């Protein structure tokens, strides 16, 4: 009888030990296999930032600001992103949207740097300042801005010793349909309105 008891106890212990080992191995495998290297929220925040890399938030680039936001920094420090970015960040993080923390005259107009090439002395200071390598040139040779790559961050303007860089409004790539002026205005599209009352389409389809 006691031998039987012993056998069942041993079996139970063995079974539980086996299960424990099994699950331990499973968890260990899962930990290495599905390891998350970085905080995924930082990536999500980074995706919402405008990537101008302008440093107006006080961080050297958008990614560091995304890190800082994840650490609890205010979400309203990004002037290029404007209200829409703040709103998107507020939605993502479940925080209250705040008014933009910037100068009142900071406009969110898209801009692009322009080098007055005749005045450029080729000092390469702006090239070193550009966060996205959007300025080409070499020492003592004229520099110019790659318009398509310029984020309009302003960082090249201050280092220029001869003040030959200015910010221009970015030219619109395409013509856009304007938004209608709203109720109380005449529409712009030509539409044939004659015989409207008698010809309204049937609803039966």
């Amino acid at each position, binding site marked *: 009888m006691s031998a039987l008891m012993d056998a069942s106890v041993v079996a139970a212990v063995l079974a539980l030990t086996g299960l424990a080992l099994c699950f331990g191995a499973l968890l260990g495998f899962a930990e290495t296999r599905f390891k998350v290297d970085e905080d995924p929220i930082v990536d999500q925040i980074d995706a919402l930032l405008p990537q101008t890399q302008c440093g107006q938030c006080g961080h050297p680039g958008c*990614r560091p600001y995304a890190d800082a936001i994840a650490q609890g920094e205010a979400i309203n420090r990004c002037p290029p992103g404007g209200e829409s970015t703040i709103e998107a960040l507020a939605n993502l993080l479940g925080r209250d949207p705040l008014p933009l923390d910037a100068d009142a005259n900071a406009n969110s107009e898209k801009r692009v740097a322009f080098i007055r090439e005749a005045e450029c002395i080729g000092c390469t200071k702006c090239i070193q300042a550009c966060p996205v390598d959007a300025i080409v040139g070499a020492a003592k040779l004229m520099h110019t801005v790659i318009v398509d790559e310029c984020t309009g961050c302003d960082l090249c303007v201050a280092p220029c010793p001869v003040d030959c860089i200015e910010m221009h409004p970015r030219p619109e790539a395409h013509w*856009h*349909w304007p*938004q209608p002026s709203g109720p109380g205005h005449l*529409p712009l*599209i030509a539409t*044939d309105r004659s015989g409207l009352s008698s010809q309204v389409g049937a609803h039966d*389809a």
Partner: protein
Amino acid sequence: MTPDFSRVHRFHGGIQPPEHKQISTTMPLQAAALPDRVVLPLQQSSGLMAQAVVSVGDYVYRGQCIAQVKTLEGQSSALGAAVHASISGHVSELATLPVPHPGGLQSPCIVIESDGLDLPVPDHVQRQDDWQDLEAEQLLATIGAAGIVGLGGAGFPTHTKLAGGFAQDTRLLLINAAECEPYITADDMLLRQRSAALIEGIQVLVHLLEPEHVVIGIEDNKSEAIACLRAAIDDDSCIQLVVVPTRYPSGGEKQLIQLVSGLEVPSGKRPIDIGVVCQNVGTVVAVADAVIRHQPLIERVVTVTGDALAQPRNFYVRLGTSIEHVLTQAGLRPQQLQRLIMGGPMMGFALTDLSLPVVKTTNCLLAGSNEALGAPGEEMPCIRCGECEAVCPAQLLPQQLYWFSAHQQYQKAASFDLWDCIECGACAYVCPSDIPLVQYYRHAKDELRVLTDEAQKAEQARQRFEARQARLTRQAEEKAAKRAARAAKAQQIQSASKATAASQPKATSDDSLSSNATPPLSESASTSSISPSLRSSQQHKIALAAAQVALKRADKQLAAAKARREEDVTALEAKVEQAREKLKALQNVSDTLSDTVSASVTPATPVTAKASGSSTPAVSASLKQLKITRAAALSAVKKAEKGLLNLQRATDATAEQLDAQKARLAGAQEQFEAAEKALQKAQLATEPTQESNS
């Protein structure tokens, strides 16, 4: 799902606006008079802009290609349409001119002044004729080279669309002859006159695409065209004619597909994704002209209609003809022309300029008065009546889309399938509040495109930023590694030199300025070796220069202090004196040195010619140095004189200052004399050396 051609299906919604088609069908389709001048925009398709291949002054024949589209890398064919001269004559201008556009934009154009002869390209007739032998790629290339775009109004490059159909399995080739929009009769009139050409075009497309079914879809209000088509289609041919009821927008691609086959194009997909290729009648005829008659797209049928015209009708119009030229031939009554619309009243847009050219997508010119076309009403608030939802052929929720678009919630509008909107205008037509709904949708679509572009740009900027950061880090690391390596090397050399210095006499490592230079010199002289003496002479030169600089600096400080009228200048004066003494001592040393060098050189010369050869530059260098010293001393004298003069001139100069300055002058003169003497001595010493060398 399989297509079902047994019956005519239905699509959701739709409207039945007054047709006004009979206005322009009373007169036969004819060619318009040739214009004197054509303006051909380089952008006449929804693809890429063509690039001009002619220059100003060139003579071009009718049908000659004047602008081509570059084939992008990784694409088999160019996404865009070539442009051909529509008349013969000289290219007079390549300029940016106004083109038909809802925003009144300007675009690059080629202007050709006609020579009135309308000569075709000479080698046209020699081209081989049998298109049935052509491979699919060749056929597509022919169609692409002819510059054919969708003539129904969208202007999508036809060869690109057909290439898509060729690459995938085409089950149904659908010829769109519905022409549902009011006023327009261009396809109707074309069918009445050229239904045989349409059949030829269909044969070309069948040869290319090998579809299972070929269907021509046509609205039941075109009885004459239907009769012509029935006559043209052989009984045994596989072409099927489906007559659909008249209801706008049955001519929409997706709507017509649904009408004839019962198939629905899924949201966000194209017809080819369900195996359907849809082509407009005009496009198919143009394909026949291009492939069989080798005629590129240089003219199209344009319906010229409206109550501002005496003879509304259809014309074959050469592309690039000015709208005014076309309207005049239809009997334009300018006083009644209040609104000019390109395209139909539902989807067209208003133009304000009669000089604009007819382009490939100009299917209709509607010139009318405000009474006939109906003045656009004032926009009023939405009353949520739901009429728009009932008529939307794409089964969207126009009201929701309107709210989202009007309140800049473009992403939400997109999530309500804004991209499936075909902009047919049915919703705006029935809206009792006269809301220009389609314009809201177009605006929202443009904004969404901008957002997508911006997201793409942001991603690109992020990648560039990260690449730059990585590069900077790498460079910093490399620099640090280099610096460490250099430091290690320097330390190694230093320890090695220390070891040698310890084993050698103290003199070589002794570089103190005040040390007496004579022992090493005498040593070098005794060993007849020149290099150590040269080295010490160099060291002295450096020391001399340093002393001169120190003197100069002290002088300057003194002058500055005096200029500031500081009382306590004696300390500075003492400093100057000290510097001067040091300089003098050094000069004395250098005098001795030059003596020694010349002395050491002279006996060495007979021994080895090599030694004397190498010593000559050293001697001349020390001579030069002495000359420089003399010149510096001279300038010091002059400076002192000048200072004295200034002091004498100054009214408030004290006697002490004058005395100090005088003393300085005397010192400088003394120095100069010493330098002069040293130089003469050195020159004397050198002369015999040079003589012995020569």
